[in-house]
């Protein structure tokens, strides 16, 4: 009996030890998680007040000083370039390790390895997209680069020095929740991070949607309603600029190609919401007589943030700005002489090709009248708690075959500029050290993808903008549709020489600006692609910058927060006047009449606490949809690309144009515009009532639901429902989980002054006060002065004097 009892107690003890050590369904292993010595209780991350540390040993060549200011921005002072990048890797991993790991896994297609079979399809997609293919191609040329490979290696060693001294107790919270541990970092991981950026900004394509539109409606429709050079565009490089060079000629334009439809083919359209604003104002338009530079990049808002603020100082460099966790250098920022910012280019750098295979072996495909060999890569996708999944990816000279129809021996391959070998980070290495315009331009040549509008200003008074990247030489329309993979006319043979890309320096109008819109007018001798951002933000910047000659930095902060919607300013008066022509206008309830009155007196500012933005946006969206559905409902081909707001508004303003559109493309059928606008209004009101109840719940901020989303999609660690102003087409460009991811203004005076803010916090640890401490200031339109120290001593004395960063607002 005694032994039975003792045995029973022992068994229960062991069972408890085992059960609490095991993950049970969605419940993580409770023992390690709740262990107060090494479990989640210890994953608090830094709570530090400002302080400084000296890093030594670990592979450093000398000692490195890191001074953390009161916002936990590390200011790194090193005695050589190896050490500065080593330390950058070290401190970034300290604050952002889990983010770096999960983002690298997401790009490389190894999420299932830690998160299980639910992620296999996502991993597969990344591999078929050629993410690793591109990263490996890049690694080969990095290895030949005498500056960048040591930089990558030093950064990698710094990250691993941090990882190597971690015990379970120190792991970021997310690892403890999923019961995993950080993997060692490699230079390839950094290049996968670069592929992620390229994927976010330059991998969308309208080709499938456009081929469907062409098939159903023809080129005439496209030229009129989906034009490459919209009538109201206000290009980045002012119209009528001369291009003093002999352009490289493209291939002969082939006959239009009709692709077959692949049922499972699925491509992301370029996101119209990922955009950015940037401008530089020359000294004769500023109060100080010195240039001002402004940049805010509209990206997916995440926690931890996509950006990590840092100052890097070594004997040949002193630079401040934001870095990408996982990559060395500063991506956007300033040094003691120059400042730069970026906005994304909408140029088409991803083409989709229809491939015809010879037989079921898929070993040969048609090209230039011959059968050519394919190659293939067997992708092995590891799966946590299961067997690895094998996926074969076929390659043509265009690129990887993403979608296959084996029965009909057809496939679709993508050729993507990001697949090519390039040492893009070298651009930032060079610009971080640039002392002036010449060095800035020399640095740009290394940057191929994702193509950016680099805005520049320096203390000598120069301002400049380069639409910079690697672009294939295209005949007009090339790549707009699914391309014929067997016809060499669609091959990428030559690329626009770097000194031919659109650029402008010290223009007469006294400013340069970009907001992702068309880079040039049609006189520019190369065709870059069909779809750039619509004109609204760019035109608004130019409108305001043209007005004055006494701009201050506060004006620049203010302009970033400008909420005026040119879409509403042009579209709403038309909606209102068309509505008046309809009989139902006379029958509106008193409440609806009140709404109409409010809209009439509205100033088109997309304010979070107003309902006019909600009504105007929804009404226009519904109207636009209804107008084009009259045409698109005549085909069942999907997806299709819709004409944008601005073209729709032009159409609404021109009754004849509208009637011709119906005659030519809707078989003469269709509703009169007042009828459509009236229906749009009715549906707007009923949808709002249905989804949101009474009008006190219709405020724009509640409809927008601006949010900063946890990268692991853990709701509790996401910040949602942020009360703030702005809209995608306004300069204060926010929409859901997309918005200004880093706001920066730099005044290039004798001593550079700068301000910045991003919606997140320096620490990736949800237990840190620095996890989300910038979100509220960001939402309230506040900025932090950026502390740019000349020396380590200055930085230490600044923190020792107990300074506190005071927020500023315009």
């Amino acid at each position, binding site marked *: 009996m005694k032994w039975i009892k*003792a045995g029973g*107690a022992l068994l229960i003890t062991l069972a*408890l*030890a085992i059960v*609490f050590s095991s993950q049970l369904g969605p419940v993580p292993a409770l*023992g*390690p998680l709740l262990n*107060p*010595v090494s479990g989640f209780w210890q994953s608090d991350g830094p*709570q530090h007040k400002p302080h400084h540390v000296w890093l030594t040993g670990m592979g450093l060549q000398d000692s490195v000083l890191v001074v953390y200011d009161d916002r936990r921005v590390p200011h790194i002072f090193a005695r050589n370039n190896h050490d500065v990048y080593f330390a950058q890797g070290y401190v970034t991993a300290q604050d952002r390790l889990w983010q770096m790991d999960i983002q690298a896994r997401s790009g490389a297609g190894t999420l299932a390895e830690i998160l299980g079979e639910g992620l296999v399809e996502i991993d597969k997609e990344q591999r078929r997209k050629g993410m690793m293919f591109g990263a490996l191609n890049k690694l080969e040329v990095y290895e030949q680069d005498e500056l960048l490979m040591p930089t990558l290696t030093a950064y990698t060693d710094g990250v691993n020095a941090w990882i190597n001294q971690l015990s379970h107790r120190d792991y970021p919270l997310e690892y403890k929740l999923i019961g995993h541990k950080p993997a060692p970092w490699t230079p390839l991981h950094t290049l996968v991070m670069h592929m992620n950026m390229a994927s976010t900004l330059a991998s969308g394509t309208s080709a499938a949607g456009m081929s469907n539109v062409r098939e159903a409606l023809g080129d005439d429709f496209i030229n009129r309603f989906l034009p490459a050079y919209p009538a109201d565009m206000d290009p980045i490089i002012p119209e009528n600029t001369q291009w003093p060079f002999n352009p490289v000629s493209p291939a002969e334009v082939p006959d239009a190609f009709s692709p077959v439809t692949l049922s499972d083919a699925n491509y992301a359209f370029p996101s119209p919401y990922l955009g950015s604003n940037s401008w530089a104002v020359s000294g004769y338009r500023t109060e100080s007589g010195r240039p001002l530079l402004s940049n805010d990049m509209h990206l997916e808002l995440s926690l931890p943030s996509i950006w990590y603020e840092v100052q890097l100082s070594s004997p040949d460099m002193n630079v401040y700005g934001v870095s990408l966790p996982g990559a060395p250098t500063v991506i956007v920022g300033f040094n003691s002489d120059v400042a730069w910012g970026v906005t994304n280019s909408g140029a088409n750098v991803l083409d989709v090709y229809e491939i015809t295979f010879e037989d079921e072996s898929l070993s040969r495909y048609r090209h230039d009248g011959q059968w050519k060999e394919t190659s293939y890569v067997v992708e092995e996708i590891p799966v946590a708690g299961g067997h690895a999944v094998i996926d074969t990816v076929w390659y043509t000279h265009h690129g990887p075959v993403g979608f296959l129809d084996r029965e009909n021996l057809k496939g679709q391959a993508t050729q993507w500029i990001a697949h090519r070998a390039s040492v893009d980070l070298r651009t930032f290495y060079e610009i971080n050290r640039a002392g002036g315009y010449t060095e800035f331009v020399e640095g740009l040549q290394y940057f191929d993808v994702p193509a950016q509008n680099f805005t520049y200003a320096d203390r000598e008074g120069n301002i400049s903008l380069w639409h910079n990247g690697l672009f294939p030489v295209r005949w007009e329309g090339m790549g707009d549709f699914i391309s014929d993979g067997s016809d060499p006319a669609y091959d990428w043979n030559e690329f626009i020489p770097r000194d031919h890309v659109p650029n402008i320096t010290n223009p007469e109008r006294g400013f340069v600006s970009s907001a992702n819109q068309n880079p040039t007018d049609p006189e520019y001798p190369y065709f870059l692609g069909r779809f750039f951002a619509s004109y609204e933000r760019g035109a608004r910047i130019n409108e305001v910058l043209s007005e004055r000659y006494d701009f201050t930095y506060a004006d620049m902060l203010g302009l970033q927060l400008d909420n005026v919607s040119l879409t509403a300013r042009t579209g709403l008066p038309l909606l209102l006047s068309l509505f008046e022509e309809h009989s139902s206008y006379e029958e509106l309830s008193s409440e609806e009449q009140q709404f109409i009155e409010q809209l009439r007196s509205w100033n088109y500012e997309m304010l979070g606490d107003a309902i006019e933005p909600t009504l105007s946006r929804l009404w226009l969206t519904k109207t636009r949809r209804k107008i084009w559905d009259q045409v698109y409902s005549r085909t069942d081909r999907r997806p299709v690309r819709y004409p944008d707001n601005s073209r729709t508004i032009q159409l609404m303003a021109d009754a004849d144009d509208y009637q011709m559109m119906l005659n030519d493309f809707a078989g003469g059928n269709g509703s009169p515009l007042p009828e459509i606008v009236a229906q749009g209004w009715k549906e707007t009101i009923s949808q709002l009532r249905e989804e949101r109840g009474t009008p006190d719940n219709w405020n724009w901020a509640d409809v927008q639901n601006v949010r900063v989303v946890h990268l692991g999609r853990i709701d509790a660690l996401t910040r949602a429902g942020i009360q703030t102003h702005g809209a995608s087409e306004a300069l204060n460009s926010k929409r859901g989980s997309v918005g200004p991811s880093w706001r920066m203004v730099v005044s290039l005076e004798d001593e550079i002054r700068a301000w910045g803010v991003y919606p997140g916090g320096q620490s990736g640890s949800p237990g840190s006060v620095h996890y989300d401490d910038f979100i509220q200031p960001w939402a309230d339109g506040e900025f932090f002065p950026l502390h740019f120290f000349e020396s380590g001593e200055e930085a230490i004395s600044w923190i020792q004097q107990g300074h506190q960063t005071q927020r500023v607002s315009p």
Partner: protein
Amino acid sequence: MKASVVIIVLGSWGLMLFLPWWTIIFPCFIAGLIGPDRGYKAFVAGLVASGGLWLALALFADFQNSGVLTGQMASVMDLPVWAVYAATLFVGAVTGAFACLAGYLVLGRGR
């Protein structure tokens, strides 16, 4: 009983600093071997000492962090904060209690 509590607290704490959480069953087991003269006392000693240690350490960590992390963790688990403490206490206390009882029963002292 006092001796058991001291062995459990010092032993568990020391082991947890370097080894996985479940190694607390060893000091608890040993405390059961040498301390209590009744089974229920062994059980209570494990329950109180191990649970108390986990709770105290958790409170200390929470205090150092001003409660930020516990709040986040509670919302991740969709529980109130006190339940996160209760779960921590439960894992430490129950494991410690049975380990200590097992030690006591194996030696078979008392009546």
